């Protein structure tokens, strides 16, 4: 194999109250795909940010091609040949796709831009990923998944020696993941070193050559992927033994005779989703399947009153109700965990406690405030049950790792004790241990008699958790399968619109 491309030695980094990294070594060779693994909050993103100069390291040194570097800003890292896709899409939503891809390195002469070349270059970058997209569209109008693809296209638009991908696949579907992997392999063959962070173990085994595991900011070890079994790997990540049996499989469909808790008839919105009928029963987990952009999120938004529907009606326990705003929905006992954590979920500067309790408090109204004691008790309860990793309840949520933010948001909704909960990609960016916990939680919610609408781009997850799956294709409801019918095969066919 080739020489060491990147060497990190003894990296340490502490944030107020948290030691994010302590003496971490990390090596990447040219021409390899190196997976960086660990639980939520293990320090993966922090390591990457130290590498690219976002955070200065407290200790240790970084060598690129043998020379010590000290990048003070991402710009410098980029110049040194490190191209990065950060966790959470870090682009500018108000600019066009083309601009987001080329920003900072736009072609042009005498300081003036050549818009034609900018578009051409953006189209080329997207074409490499086989993404079709209007390069003049405003980035913010795209779904998170497409934004993610744009972010990757941007990272590939440079002649980098080292490519860093922090959870690039968290919101992609299988087809797109496959395409990305194809590209990664090609780049590897060209001699590029690639760092790849993910929580999908399948993907680790599909694409990576070696892997490094972090736990609690410390190095667990560096391994050759092929030498490590899945169970061993999970054991290293979590620091305890797990077995595959921990994942519940297959759920029986409940009796269909029951009155649905939530039902929608002919619910639709022009340009977003064709009228759909759907019913959710107490004690079931209904899945909403579909490819990216098939209209799943749009359906959820209609149900939750975020967008106004222009046809159809919603009934709750048989009675027709008006859901004109999320506030109405929350009052009626609905909950909605959005897929866009950053823009629609967290209140970044507020504390974990406030983030956790805001929905419950909103439901109770301003005047019936929770007492400090109640607040602490509730928070501690959820922090314990969901194993949220945070310094304390008063830490601003923006300082939590992505996965832990997601858990706080879940806790926010559980605290409102809803009758119906809509989970849009709830496991995005969540580590395998937490994912398992969330799946168990979903099972428990079902057992407690909640109706759950589960949206996920991971087919396996849908298969494992749902007793019924509604499939959307091209913004209309095209099919429904239940119980034992639910297999990955059938789902894929339904989603793609091909016949078996």
């Amino acid at each position: 194999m080739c020489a060491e491309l990147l060497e990190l030695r003894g990296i340490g980094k502490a944030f107020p109250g948290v030691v994010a990294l302590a003496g971490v070594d990390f090596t990447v060779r040219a021409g390899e795909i190196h997976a960086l693994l660990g639980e939520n909050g293990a320090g993966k993103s922090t390591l990457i940010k130290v590498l690219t100069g976002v955070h200065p390291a407290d200790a240790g040194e970084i060598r690129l091609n043998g020379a010590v570097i000290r990048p003070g800003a991402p710009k410098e890292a980029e110049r040194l040949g490190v191209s990065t896709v950060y966790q959470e899409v870090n682009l500018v939503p108000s600019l066009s796709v083309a601009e987001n891809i080329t920003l900072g390195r736009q072609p042009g002469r005498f300081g003036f831009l050549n818009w034609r070349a900018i578009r051409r270059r953006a189209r080329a970058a997207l074409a490499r990923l086989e993404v079709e997209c209007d390069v003049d569209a405003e980035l913010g109008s795209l779904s998170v998944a497409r934004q993610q693809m744009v972010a990757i296209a941007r990272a590939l638009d440079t002649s980098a020696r080292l490519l860093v991908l922090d959870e690039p696949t968290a919101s992609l579907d299988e087809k797109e993941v496959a395409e990305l992997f194809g590209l990664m392999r090609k780049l590897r063959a060209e001699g590029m070193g690639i760092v790849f962070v993910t929580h999908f173990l399948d993907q680790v085994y599909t694409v990576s050559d070696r892997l490094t595991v972090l736990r609690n900011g410390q190095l667990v070890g560096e391994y050759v992927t092929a030498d490590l079994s899945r169970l061993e790997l999970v054991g290293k990540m979590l620091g305890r033994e797990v077995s595959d049996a921990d994942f519940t499989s297959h759920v029986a469909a409940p009796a269909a005779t029951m009155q649905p808790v939530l039902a929608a008839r002919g619910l639709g919105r022009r340009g977003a989703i064709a009228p759909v009928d759907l019913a959710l029963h107490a004690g079931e987990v209904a899945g909403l399947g579909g490819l990216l952009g098939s209209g799943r999120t749009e359906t959820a938004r209609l149900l939750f009153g975020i967008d106004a529907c222009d046809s159809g009606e919603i009934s709750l326990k048989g009675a027709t109700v008006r859901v004109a705003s999320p506030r109405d929905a929350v009052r009626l006992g609905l909950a909605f965990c959005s897929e866009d954590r950053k823009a629609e979920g967290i209140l970044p500067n507020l504390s974990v406690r406030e983030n956790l309790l805001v929905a419950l408090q909103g439901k109770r109204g301003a005047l019936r405030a929770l007492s400090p004691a109640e607040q602490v008790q509730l928070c501690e309860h959820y922090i314990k049950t969901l194993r949220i990793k945070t310094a304390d309840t008063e830490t601003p949520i923006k300082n939590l790792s992505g996965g832990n933010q997601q858990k706080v948001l879940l806790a926010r909704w559980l605290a409102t004790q809803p009758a119906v909960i809509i989970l849009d990609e709830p496991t995005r960016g969540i580590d395998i241990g937490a994912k398992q916990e969330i799946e168990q939680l979903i099972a428990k919610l079902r057992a407690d008699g909640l109706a759950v609408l589960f949206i996920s781009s991971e087919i396996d997850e849908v298969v494992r958790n749902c007793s019924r799956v509604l499939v959307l294709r091209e913004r209309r409801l095209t099919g429904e399968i239940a119980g034992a019918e639910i297999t990955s095969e059938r789902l894929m066919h339904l989603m793609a619109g091909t016949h078996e």
Partner: protein
Amino acid sequence: MKAKSPVIWPLLGLAALVLLNAVHDLGFLKITLLDGHLYGVPIDILTQGSRTMLVALGMTLVIATGGVDLSVGSVVAIAGAVCAVLLQGGHSLALTLAAALGAGLLAGSANGLLVARLGVQPIVATLILMVAGRGLAQLIVDGQVIIIKSPAFEYLANGFLLGLPVAPLLVVALYLATHLALRRTALGLFIEAVGDNETASRFAGLAAARIKALAYIFCGAGAGLAGVLAAANIRAADAYRAGENMELDAIFAVVVGGTALTGGRFSILGTAVGALLIQTLTTTMYNLGVPPAIAPVPKALLIIGVTLLQSDKIGRWLGGLWPKREAA
């Protein structure tokens, strides 16, 4: 470790100013009893600062929701004009006060409607009332400066209760009431949530628009009361100049007090300190005899000084001067 309180720097700034004055002239700190009430420069500062404090209180909430209210100065003028006209017409004090407060509420509602319901950017929405409001005030008094001859009315601004000045007492009471109303209920949380991330708050089931509108209405009411105090203070409604540039002072007080203009976290206590700071600065300049033409310069230096001290970077440098007391 709890985050350092942002109030500390404006407080230190205040202390520094007071010290400067005291060094210059020891009489500065002297408080005497005159005709059974307290008398002295600190009392003046409190009394004179009470109007800015009132306006800044409402402004804090508006800024916390991520907005700003430029119209407060005009609302001050309107409320004063309303008072003058009603009192001149022989109406009762109670009615007059209610009407002035009502005018403030109405103005706030108009702002709230534009910002929260129609989604107009706050600066523009409130600029409308800032421009038109002063015209309205002048229209109400028909361009005259109306003299108010009502001892009861004047008492509100210049009177003393048990030897203590009434206006600051009133303002302190309002600050306390607001603090309790916001922190004992969840309103404070809601305002911070909306200011921090409006979309996310809406998705969490908060009535974001209503909360924003409420902040503007509250701010309008505060400005209305300040207008009453301003008119009572000079026993006249000066529709031309009352409340002029008050919006800048209020915003200054709020931001120096540690509430970010981008919205989110707010500090009422910080605002009170900020408002006192700005008033003390004015008095200091009278005291030191700074020529009026260059009076803005010390103000500028103070702003830069306080904001610099508040910045994280300087905080860290200063933090580095003392060895860490606690182990990580």
